[in-house]
């Protein structure tokens, strides 16, 4: 049985400007221990997908569809049932680690309360476990860090602490929402290495939300490319990177600067902006920005399987030809 089965997940927000359709019928599976990368531009619904799974949507947000975790439906759980799962079976870490930690509480207090709450540990053993966890995420001098406050630590260290906090109860699933976006480049790679290492060592499955395709290539087993709240393409990492089937995936890959290509003259960007989520266009949401759009694209394409366990939402029969090589030659 899959660890996580998301079926037709839809997230909407009531705003004064109208209903924002943040996630539109998202479906995917995640096996235990697997690492799934969710990529897409800002506003493609990645974060809202994660928050909906955690039951942490803003007050004006509504989630429908189905999110089954170990067979248990998460949507519509009572608050007390949710709190039993959160932080214990499913953990989440956030984009800005410094503001994600409580500035008024010591690191130790913030770690210990997870264990006293979920594991009914006394303070002593909880402290010992927290210190051990800090060691695992390579925090130097953990006893001293326990007494310190977030503002005394660097962003990278705060993110390590968030990761430690997420893994304290050995969850089945860790959702990491752009865990390195707010950090320096060198620190980014350290955190990514750490995440990779921890995912290999533990049986924790990871959903990694990012717009950094390099990180996905390095860490993930599976990729889900999101656009306007929908899956555009879903596949294992290697085939998708070697041979993107959707023009949007191709565009994302081409907009990554690369040193290993001879023709790396001009970095290609995808023209235009993502669609307005209040009034979604009919047909394929990527149509307006797609180089390959044709008559059929005024219909809304379905997510359909092809090859070996690959999925795409596109009418194109053949692969989009990479453009950069022709034009920059």
């Amino acid at each position, binding site marked *: 049985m899959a660890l996580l089965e998301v079926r037709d997940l839809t997230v909407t927000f009531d705003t004064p400007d109208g209903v924002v359709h943040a996630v539109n019928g998202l479906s995917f599976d995640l096996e235990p221990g697997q690492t799934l990368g969710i990529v897409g531009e800002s506003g493609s619904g990645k974060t809202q997908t994660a928050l909906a799974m955690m039951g*942490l949507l803003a007050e004006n947000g509504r989630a429908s569809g189905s999110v089954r975790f170990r067979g248990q439906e998460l949507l519509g759980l009572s608050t*007390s049932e949710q*709190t039993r*799962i*959160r932080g214990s079976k499913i953990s989440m870490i*956030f984009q800005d680690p410094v503001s994600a930690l409580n*500035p*008024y509480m010591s690191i130790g207090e913030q770690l210990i*309360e997870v264990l006293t709450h979920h594991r009914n540990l006394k303070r002593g053993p909880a402290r010992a476990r927290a210190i051990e966890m800090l060691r695992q995420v390579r925090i130097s001098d953990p006893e001293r860090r326990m007494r310190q406050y977030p503002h005394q630590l660097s962003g990278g260290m705060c993110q390590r602490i968030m990761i430690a*906090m997420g893994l304290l109860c050995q969850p089945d699933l860790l959702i990491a929402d752009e865990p390195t976006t707010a950090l320096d480049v060198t620190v980014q790679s350290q955190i990514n290495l750490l995440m990779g290492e921890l995912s290999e060592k533990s049986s924790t499955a990871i959903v990694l939300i990012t717009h950094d395709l390099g990180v996905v290539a390095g860490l993930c087993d599976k990729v889900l490319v999101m656009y306007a709240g929908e899956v555009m393409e879903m596949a294992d990492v290697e085939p998708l990177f070697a041979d993107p089937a959707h023009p949007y995936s191709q565009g994302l890959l081409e907009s990554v600067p690369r040193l290993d290509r001879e023709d790396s003259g001009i970095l290609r960007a995808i023209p235009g902006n993502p669609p307005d989520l209040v009034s979604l266009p009919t047909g394929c949401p990527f149509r307006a920005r797609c180089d390959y759009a044709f008559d059929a694209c005024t219909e809304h394409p379905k997510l359909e399987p092809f090859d070996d366990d690959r999925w795409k939402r596109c009418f194109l029969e053949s692969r989009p030809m990479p453009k950069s090589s022709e034009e920059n030659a």
Partner: protein
Amino acid sequence: MLNYSLKRLASAVPTLLILITVAFFLIRIAPGGPFDSEKALPPEIEANLEAKYQLDDPLVVQYVRYLGDILMFDFGPSFHYRDWTVNELIAQGAPVSFTLGAIALVLAMLFGTTIGVWAALKQNTVADYATMSIAMIGISVPNFVMAPLLVLAFAIGLGWLPAGGWDGSVSRMVLPSIALALPMIAYIARITRGSMIEVLHSDFIRTARAKGLPEREVLVRHALKPALLPVISYLGPAAAAILTGSVVIERIFTIPGIGSHFVQGALNRDYTLVMGVVIFYGVLIIVLNYLVDLVYAWLDPRIRYDN
């Protein structure tokens, strides 16, 4: 931290000096004098009086002498209450004013924060809007209007409580302390609501929820302290508001505190009494603000550990 508190303490000295200087010369500039009456005194008697109270020296000499006196905590004799020194008058009125002010402050904190947190949790509901509208009225109605209305309703109309006076009994404390506290309850409720709503939307509260803490624990352990910080920093100005408020309230309820001395002293050109009360108020506000800063620093580790 120690360094910080010493620095803050040292900065109080020039503040106090400026306060004393401005007050000293202002009250002297005001027309009239302490011994004026309906009928002009014969010049020789006035001269004798002025000589007795050393008012015949040049103003600057009087100023320097006064500074010397207050260094010895001697605020001089009252010009109006002939048998009393200012020290005695303040010593007599201070406990009464303190009691009244402290009750009002505690009421304001207790009810203000509770109402504020409650309204924040009910954000954008009818209960929230109703509470905040009432609070707005509470802030807008000055206590010299509120006090007579309370007297009218509860003392004269319903006859539940005495209309004034002070004998240390609870029943006489109720109306004046409520009149004094009401605008502050309203103000604190509004600050608390605002800061609580802001805190509840912050990233670290989302983290606390993501950790699986029940909502009550999120509120008490994570949200309450940061939400109350603005209230703590308001306590300094609140103390000042209590003092100025008590000047009016003590008059209305005929309470023998320092506030009534302040008003009477100013009307009578009782130079020493006015100065004494001004300095007393000044020191009180400076000390309270200082304590508030210390409490704030103690609550907020980012200030506490500022190197």
